[in-house]
């Protein structure tokens, strides 16, 4: 089962998003999800070393999906790929998916054992349901 890392400037935001995603997944099982968010509980910011640690914590041969909020979260995640080494980096995907919608979609698919590349692709289309409903697609 793939692991998931959530990178955000805000720890509170990341933890709330993870709680929401877990609601959508059965209470037993579901993917390993770690946050790398905020410099501490209240200070906003991201830390590439923390992202690297989170990737390591959820890593397995099935790989890791990384979701980010914006701006420097993306640079921190990219830098983390350099910190973890090429062998692990090869099975990590940084996704352009929207943070909340992508995380929920990814958690559900990961629980169903869907492979990393498919989850990455689907997470990036995660705004589709909302767009369709609002008839803006």
């Amino acid at each position, binding site marked *: 089962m793939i692991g998931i890392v959530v990178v955000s*400037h805000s720890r509170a935001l990341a933890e709330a998003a993870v709680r929401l995603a877990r609601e959508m997944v059965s209470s037993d099982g579901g993917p390993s999800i770690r946050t790398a968010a905020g*410099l501490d509980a209240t*200070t*906003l*910011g*991201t*830390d*590439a*070393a*923390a992202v690297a640690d989170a990737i390591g914590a959820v890593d397995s041969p099935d790989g890791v999906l990384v979701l980010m909020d914006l*701006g*420097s979260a993306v*640079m*921190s995640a*990219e*830098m983390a790929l350099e910190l973890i080494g090429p062998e692990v980096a090869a099975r990590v995907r940084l996704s352009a998916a929207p943070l909340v919608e992508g995380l929920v979609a990814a958690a559900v698919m990961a629980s169903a054992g869907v492979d990393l590349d498919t989850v990455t692709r689907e997470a990036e289309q995660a705004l589709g349901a909302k767009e369709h409903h609002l008839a803006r697609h």
Partner: protein
Amino acid sequence: MSVASDTIALEQLRSWLRDFAAEVAEQAEYLTELDSAIGDADHGTNMDRGMKAVAALLDDASLDTPEALLKKIGMTLVSTVGGASGPLYGTFFLRFGTALPGKTEVDAGDLGAALRAGLDGVVQRGKAEVGDKTMVDAWAPALDAFDGAVTQGGGLAAALDAAVVAAARGRDGTADLVARKGRASYLGDRSVGHIDPGATSSTMLLESAARTLTA
């Protein structure tokens, strides 16, 4: 001028970063002011927090080579700055240090090449080009001026002075640019008329270098 002043020892690198940390602490409000005009008003606070953490490690005797010291500085900034300057300055120092393997002293040629490795890292990380209104707009002309001075036979002091002049000019020139990176890019044309904070702190870093690396 003795040849000795044209090589940089580890202790001078420490002095450099101490000087920069003091400068950032003193100018933190100003840097934040620049950033509130066009950014998210945290550049000064973020850099001050990062450089205070760097200052605290400068006396660690186990960081006993330029490479080890500079890489530790890079990783410290990554984990303490929080905003875009974390991965950007972090990558800068990591690449800078990595470009000095096995060195105990650094000459002007080494410094130029290593600073350029740092700048290449910043460009790779942030994907900014000259003209995007970022720190690159200070670093790129600064390193060209540094290299030019060295090529013309100038020593370390002349090269650093040339770099500072060019960085300051590049920094001031960012006022006329439309931001194409970072939070300022959301402002579009409204970012014109304001100097970029990252170009400002980068110029400060070079000014500190000119003050300390030839002493």
